Every structure is written in C-alpha cells, then in structure tokens.
C-alpha cells in the first residue's frame, strides 16, 4: 500500500510540471504585455523597459520560468494588480470559501444521491425508481445557474427567507460556522449539490442493480443473512466506486463553480477567476489557475489511493 502510494505520487510529478509550465506560459501567450494593463498610458519607452527589467520580463523565457517556479515554491505567487494584495492571500481565501461551498454541496449531493440511488437500485421499475431517476436526470440536465436564479427568486425575493448573495458579515475573509454565515451558504450549496446528486444517484443505482444480481447476494441469503445484513454487504461493495465518484465530483465542483459563485457573489475561486479575467489581473489569474490545477491533481491522487485502500480486488503491487 505504501509503495503503491509512493509510486502514484511519483506519477504526479510530470503532471505537476506540465501544469506549472502551462500556467507560466499563460501570462506570455496572452496578447500584449503582462504589464500593459498597469503601466501608465503615457509611459516612455525607457520607463517601460525599466519596469520590464524590474519585473524580470527582459530575461529569456526558461530563465523566467525557473525564477517564477522558485518563487512559487516558497509561496510567492506575486501581487494582484487590482487589489495590490499578495496573490497567495487572495487565492487562499477564495480556495477556503470554495472548499466550504463545494464540500457542503458534495455532502448534500452525496447524501441524497446515495438515498435515491439505493432506493432506485433496490426497487427497480417501481414508481420510486422512476421518480428518483427523473430527479437525477433533472439534476444533471438543468442549467444550475438557472436553478440558482429560480431559488433566489423564490426564497430571497418572494419569501425573503434567505439572503441572495455574499458570504455573510465577514465578507470573503472570515467564514464562521454560525447561522449568520450559514444562511448565506444554503442557496448556493443546494444549487450546486444538484450536479453531484444526479451523477451519484445514477452511479449508485446502476451499481446496486448490478451487485444485487450477483450470486453472492443469493449465497448470503442462503446462509441466513437478513435483508439488513445483506444491505451492509451491498453498501460495502458500492463504497469504493461511490467514494471515487464523490471525490471526482468534489474536484469538479472545486474548479467548475464560476457560474454559481457569480450568480450568488460567493467569494470563491470561481468568483475570483471571473474578477481576474474581467480586470485583466494576470498574476491573480495565473496564481488561481495554478492552485486550482494542483488541487485537482492531488484530489485525483487521493481518490486513487483511497479506492485502492478500500477495494481489495485492485492489484496492489
């Protein structure tokens, strides 16, 4: 297991290298100069050159990359052009907010996805199954920003129960697990949870149906196991796949929440990316993408290792 984990960790290195190169080049393939946006329009050629030299943009690209990577390694992702704050500070705040939102959404989605999936898988063809299947298809196919707006109209505008935007009194900086903050989380989390719920429900349904058709279920009944005892076996058999899907969904939500975060003005990475793009804040954009990409790589690693640990059939060599 340890050897497998180390090996798997080794595979991550080239991927991480690739990601860092792409992120680095991002700044250089965009039209214009990274500094154009911040330089005074009437700056003279000498001023421009001096500024370029000060930022190191006059050196050859590979050298710039090594210097940049060295800084990244010690946590220096540069300074946001728009806010003047360190990119690392901005990104880590946003990451923690996105993490809160995605984790809660995944948890909600996982819970209801499992519930619908198990019920549908156990009672295939029944009305309950059809309802659960319809809900999960709806979950995958309804545009979530649209769902978000509908929820806002109902619960914020009409009923005035829950706030429509923001992350609560602390703004983007301090999240706390109290009602003042959590009420801001409810609508975006529910909106977001619909995606993993649909995927997880469909996965579990197919999986449960497949497991129930296997002979060992009959054999368990033949040795006198009750339905409840057999259910435990079904759960344990679905666990590796269910957790893997959940992990991938969490990863997907961590990166793919621009629309929902924008609709709800939730100060996470998606919101930050959006802001960085519209303000042409390249250091911020670069830092955010780098952090997100690394996150995804590590999450994949975690899912792989976890699945191997849970499923004895996957070769551990």
């Amino acid at each position, binding site marked *: 297991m340890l050897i497998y984990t180390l090996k798997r960790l080794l595979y991550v290195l080239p991927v991480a290298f690739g990601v860092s190169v792409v992120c680095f080049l991002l700044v250089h393939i965009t039209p214009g100069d990274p500094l154009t946006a911040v330089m005074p329009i009437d700056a003279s050629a000498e001023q421009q050159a001096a500024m370029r030299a000060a930022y190191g943009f006059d050196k050859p690209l590979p050298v710039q990359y090594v210097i940049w990577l060295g800084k990244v390694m010690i946590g220096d992702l540069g300074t946001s052009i728009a806010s003047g704050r360190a990119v690392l500070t901005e990104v880590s705040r946003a990451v923690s907010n996105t993490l809160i939102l995605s984790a809660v959404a995944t948890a909600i989605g996982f819970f209801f996805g499992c519930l619908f999936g198990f019920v549908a898988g156990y009672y295939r063809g029944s009305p309950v199954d059809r309802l659960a299947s319809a809900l999960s298809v709806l979950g995958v196919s309804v545009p979530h920003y649209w769902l978000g707006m509908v929820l806002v109209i109902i619960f914020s505008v009409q009923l005035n129960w829950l706030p429509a935007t923001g992350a609560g009194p602390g703004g983007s900086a301090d999240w706390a697990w109290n009602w003042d903050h959590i009420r801001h989380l409810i609508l975006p989390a529910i909106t977001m949870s619909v995606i993993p719920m649909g995927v997880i429900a469909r996965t579990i349904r197919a999986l449960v149906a497949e497991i129930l058709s*296997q002979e*060992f279920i*009959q054999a368990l009944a033949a*040795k*006198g196991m009750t339905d409840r005892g057999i259910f435990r076996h079904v759960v344990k058999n679905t666990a590796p796949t269910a957790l893997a899907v959940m992990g991938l969904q969490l990863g997907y939500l961590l990166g793919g929440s621009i629309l929902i975060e924008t609709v709800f003005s939730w100060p996470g990475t998606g919101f930050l990316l959006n802001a960085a793009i519209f303000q042409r804040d390249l250091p911020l954009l670069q830092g955010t993408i780098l952090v997100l990409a690394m996150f995804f790589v590590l999450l994949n690693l975690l899912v792989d290792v976890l699945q191997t640990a849970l*499923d*004895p059939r996957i070769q551990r060599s």
Partner: protein
Amino acid sequence: MNDAAPMIDIRDLTVTFTGGRKPVHAVNGVTLSVQRGEVVALLGESGSGKSVTLRSLLNMHPKHRSRLNGSVIAAGQDVLKLSGRALADYRGRVASMIFQEPLLALDPVYTVGAQIVEAIRRHEKATLAVAQARALALLQKVRIPSPERRLQAFPHEMSGGMRQRAMIALALACNPQILLADEPTTALDATVQIQILLLLRELQRELGLTVILVTHDIGVAVEVADRVAVMYAGRIVETGPVREIIRNPRHPYTQGLLASRAHDAMSGARLDAIPGAPPDLAALPPGCAFAPRCRFSAAACLAEAPGSVAVGPQHSARCLRLAELAAA
C-alpha cells in the same frame, strides 16, 4: 420428529416462473425423500430443473416471480411455509448450500474469515473471538494450508480449489444437518475435483450430514452418492441406488446419459449421445417429455405422462415401455 421420518421429504413439488412472457415450468411434480445421513445425487442435463429443485429446499425463489406447489419438509420444518426471520434462521443453520462457482458466491470485498465469522454470529450468540476461533477450526477441518493466513485472504487471492474448500467451511459453519451442493466441482480442474469430492464424502460421514448433490456428471454421482435421482424436464424419471442405476439403467434417458459418458471417456470430447434438445419448459408436451428424443417412443408415449413404476428394490422409473424394453 421421529427417527424413522426422512430428513428431507419433497412431495409433488412444482415450480413455475411467472416473470417472463410465458410461464416457465421448471419443476413438474418432484417427489423425493432422503433419509438422515443419506447422499442423493440429482443428475441430469443442464436446464432439467436440478438447481431449481435444490433452491426450493431453502425457499430461495423470488416471491413475486415464482409459483410453488406441493410440500417440502426438511428436518421436520415445512420449508415453503417459512418466511422472514424463521426462514433466515432455517437457512444456514438447518440446511446450507454450496455453490458451483465460489468466486461468484463469496462477497469479493470481505475476507473469507469475516464471511465465516458473520455466518456464525448470525445464528449463534458467539463473541468475535470465539467465532474467529471456530472459523479457524473450520478452515483446518477442510484442510486449507496455513489457515491463519487464509482467514485474512480475500476470495480472489485464493485458488479455485481453496475457494471451494472455504465455501464448504462456510456452509458447515453452523453445524447444519442438511448440505445442499449445486455442482460443487464443475468449475474445478479434474484433479482438484476429486479432492473436493473426497473431502465432501469424508465430512458427510464424520458429521452424519444428509446431502443432496446436483451434478450433470454421472462420475461425480458415483464418487459420492448412495442414491441417484435422474431428472428430465423438471421430473425425476428414474431413481435408485448408484450401482443399480449404473449397471441396470431402465429409463431410455438414463441409458442415453450413461452412453454419452462412455463416449466422453473414449474421445475426451463432449459428444451428444442423445440426439435432439431438451423441451421448451414454457410449452411442455402432454405426454412423456422425453418422447420426442426417445428411440423407443410409441404413440402412447405422446398421449399421457407415465407414472412411476417400481422396477426393483428402491429402484423406480417413469416410462410406459419399461416392460417391453426389458424384454427386448
């Protein structure tokens, strides 16, 4: 229950599967009784209803997709009337089952030890430690090498023979009186097959088990059984002591089975000595189900299903032309 009563008494059992478009008549009036400590082999081609008969002994058929008639009494319990908790208590404790392919019949994500321990603790108030000790003793009993290590093994980590031994250990975990074995050696290599059969026979004698063993291989039946019941299209067409069946088969179908076995031995390949195919169980003919394939069939055979006729002590067959064939 008195000692004279048979351990297993199946009377006029019919099993019809109603899930599909047409009802499938898998078992059509099986009557079979097995004495305590007796080993009976159910022999027949694939699809003849052997497994369905065997599963009836654990009341394993899907409730809403099957119809069962007749009665099944095992160890004094009316099996077809059991349900819920009582049925679960009966299964594994009074009668337990060995499956054809242990790789499919064992849960892939539980260790072998955990699965045996689970069975013990399901039926008895044993502490974990006690149950684990019992599981270890069971693996020793079925002669699995380094049993301590095997308790921690997952089914896929064992060889086919070891898995079947583990399956036997699991089936014997709660000291059942009745052991039902559905083609327990079909999935195994020839050399391993014989070891497993010897083990089964030995355990049967030692524990005084009553056994019904399903097989399509008459060689397997000869190896372990006291008595053979030959099945065709959901009926027992001939039954008698093993030697009697081998030496003096009376039903044309049994004769065909024995002949195909001889062919097998000679050519090493599977030759179909009985021409034709088994009947469609959704549309059984009114007469003898074997008649369309039978060399000796006469007009009368197509008209009515033959009753069981005694042809010797404990030996009986269902064929209208028994007397004529014997004379020929």
